[in-house]
């Protein structure tokens, strides 16, 4: 009985996880890269899902590319860490938000529908400053 209760308790958070739908997918990987969600890291492969809250990391000499639901495209060079802090894409209900945090490394960013419909809903935090996106293609480097 005790075991059953334990099993139930353990499976409850799994249900929450399953209800969480991906906000994007890994499309390109070179070398060693990972996607961490709720503290659990998986090796990044083509098709690996990315969620709101996921942390994307690349090792030395590695790179990674992700395409999001709203058609935002991000790709990363080596030694990079980016957290998808917030992601809301429900244009039918006017709910749009895309926040990320680049803590180190390099990012190539091509903005998508969220930046087009509501530019002030998109921002990228870095250790020294915040970037506001006005619908565009740009590069960001965060040094050590």
């Amino acid at each position: 009985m005790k075991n059953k209760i334990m099993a139930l308790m353990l499976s409850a958070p799994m249900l929450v996880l399953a209800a969480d739908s991906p906000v994007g997918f890994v499309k390109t990987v070179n070398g060693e890269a990972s996607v961490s969600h709720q503290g659990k890291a998986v090796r990044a492969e083509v098709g690996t899902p990315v969620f709101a809250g996921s942390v994307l990391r690349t090792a030395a000499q590695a790179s990674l590319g992700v395409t999001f639901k709203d058609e935002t495209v991000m790709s990363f060079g080596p030694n990079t860490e980016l957290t998808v802090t917030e992601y809301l894409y429900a244009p039918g209900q006017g709910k749009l938000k895309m926040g990320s945090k680049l803590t180190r490394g390099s990012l190539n960013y091509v903005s998508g529908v969220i930046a087009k419909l509501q530019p002030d809903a998109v921002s990228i935090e870095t250790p020294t400053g915040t970037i506001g996106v006005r619908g565009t293609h740009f590069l960001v480097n965060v040094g050590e």
Partner: protein
Amino acid sequence: MRRIHAKLLAAFLSIGLLGGCASKSYVVLLDNPDGSTGAVVIKGSKGEQVVDQSGHGAALDGSTRAAPVAAETIQRDFGSAMAARPILPERFLLYFESGGARLTEASAALLPKIIAAANRRPAVDVSIIGHTDTIGKAEVNEALALQRAQVIADLIKARGLKVHALSVESHGERNLLVATGDEVSEPRNRRVEISLR
């Protein structure tokens, strides 16, 4: 003479921006895939800057004004990130005959092209969104738009497209491509949007 001067100034500015150091934190604006140029706004501890010219960059702490960044510097710091960029997403519009889920002839002819484009993508992630014009009740159109989107989803699956992820949605008459009043028949609004990612 003046040109040499300008070149020297540009070189000086880019050295100033990067401080001759590879680890500086900065942003560089590039042309959009469609050839236009947008802008980024930097809010840092040392000020606020706007970068609105392609090839120009500025420090992330807001301490420097936007200035040209040398192509070699961009290649050195971002070559790997740029090479890893996924294929850019692509959108298609399919149009319907009035009042039902029957594709126009021209749109039906477009399906093989869409399937071929989807098959070229790794782990293709597809959204299909149905829309109507404003003829009829909003609730009825909500259902009709979903029916249109579902018809397209079934069609592309029947033709052998393997999708990694698929979403089928209805925007009913809430998201018109061409703004009209209520009860207006507008062929361009009777559509399904397909986003291939």
